[in-house]
């Protein structure tokens, strides 16, 4: 009965602004598994330790797409250190709270991000 999507989630899902893949990205990361219903890929342009551009590609439900878009917006302009501290809860909160059964979608976003940052460090 509390399993509603917020208006913010729905709007972001319907008009995501950060879709796509950055060519010659400085970092890319992936998380999820199509058999579980969600796959999320994130690509970042990083300059002087600051994320200049973030784009996503997502296979998944409304919450997964909205979370991905929210995450990209949050990332742009943040330092890597700031980015590392973003939690699923932060994303969910920005979206006006995801339904409990969908919280994993926001966590998936942070996993993809961590993977991207790891990938960046290894470069």
């Amino acid at each position: 009965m509390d399993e509603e999507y917020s208006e913010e989630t729905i709007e972001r899902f319907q008009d995501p602004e950060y879709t796509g893949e950055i060519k010659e990205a400085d970092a890319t990361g992936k998380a999820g598994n199509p058999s579980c219903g969600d796959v999320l890929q994130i690509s970042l342009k990083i300059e002087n330790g600051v994320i200049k551009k973030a784009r996503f590609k997502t296979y998944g439900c409304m919450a997964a797409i909205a979370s991905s878009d929210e995450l990209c917006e949050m990332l742009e302009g943040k330092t890597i250190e700031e980015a590392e501290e973003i939690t699923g809860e932060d994303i969910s909160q920005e979206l006006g709270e995801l339904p409990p059964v969908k919280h994993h979608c926001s966590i998936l976003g942070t996993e993809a991000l961590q993977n991207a940052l790891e990938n960046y460090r290894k470069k």
Partner: protein
Amino acid sequence: MTEKKVEAYLDNGATTKVDPDALKEMKPYFTEKYGNSESLHKKGKEAKKAVEKSRRTIADTINADKKEIIFTSGGTESDNLALKGTAYKNKQKGKHIVTTKIEHDAVLQSAKWLEEQGFEVTYLSVDEEGFVDSEELKQAVNDRTILVSIIHGNNEIGTIQDLKTLAEITHDYSNNAYFHTDACQSYTKTELDVEKQNLDLVTINGHKIHGPKGTGALYIKENTEIDTWQHGGGHENGLRSGTLNVHGIVGFAEAAKKNHKNKQKNIQKMTQLRDKLIQGTLKKIDKTKLNGPEGEKRLPNNINICFNNIEGEALSGYLNRKNIYASTGSACSSLELEPSQVLKEIGLTDQEANSSLRMTLSKFTTQEEIEHTLKELPGVVNRLREMSPL
């Protein structure tokens, strides 16, 4: 500008619009003929008369006797009563029940609960089109079997089982087994004849056939041994207590009557639109596949298509923006995380199951709705595929 107004309601498998004629029949029973059908005075008699007339109407649509119909609050209640009521009543004869892996949750969860109470349940598998294998049924049924419950028209993939054959096997292979079918999706949309098909128990409901929500019925063949599951004042011959939902029953019966009368015409119309939408989609959009059977073995109003690489809920969400209303599967589990069990049973991978969309039509569905859908679908699928990392 006018274009924007087209709405396509393609979720008739979840629920339907009430037929305005049914609503019209219901109206007097809210504020005028509002009596309790069990009261002996005039207001009670009015109500009783309406209920009994409705009972006959519904009985007629499935070739049953009026006495064999009892009214419930819906398909879920009828399924619960059919399974639990026969299980408890007949447990002395055996504690074995047979059903399938593609039942609606109302049957499936009732069966699971009965397992917890000490019954043994065999879940039959299905082939890649969703059909039960009659050989497997023969193997499963024996004299310890007290009930076989097999869904008639599947709610997700539209597969119509051959009830007659399955019911006959049930009766041939067990002296103690009743045959129940959940016919919520198939009722008035394909043949349903309790005599011809040899059925003992049949679940139907109102809101899938343009009747009001909160109405259902269970056909119980005469002399079937069954316990009530909702105790109380002893209504419905002691089989289902609770004040009768008179206006609901009247609307249910009127909707059933109209649907039954125009059955062939409705089937033809829905089949034509169904096939137009299926073929149009498969042709216009690559990497798509129909789930479930084709042609006459499929419910005339059911479409289920796998759109590779895009997730079903997201797809329905984008279609919603174009005023096209469809669901991924059974509405009750919309927010569930598990991929559809039915789709997996017919051989889809988890990813394919997650990438599927159900579109279900009704007798009210128009050419315009189908054309609108065919026009918008490719763009929406494209947008989501662009967004997909797969």
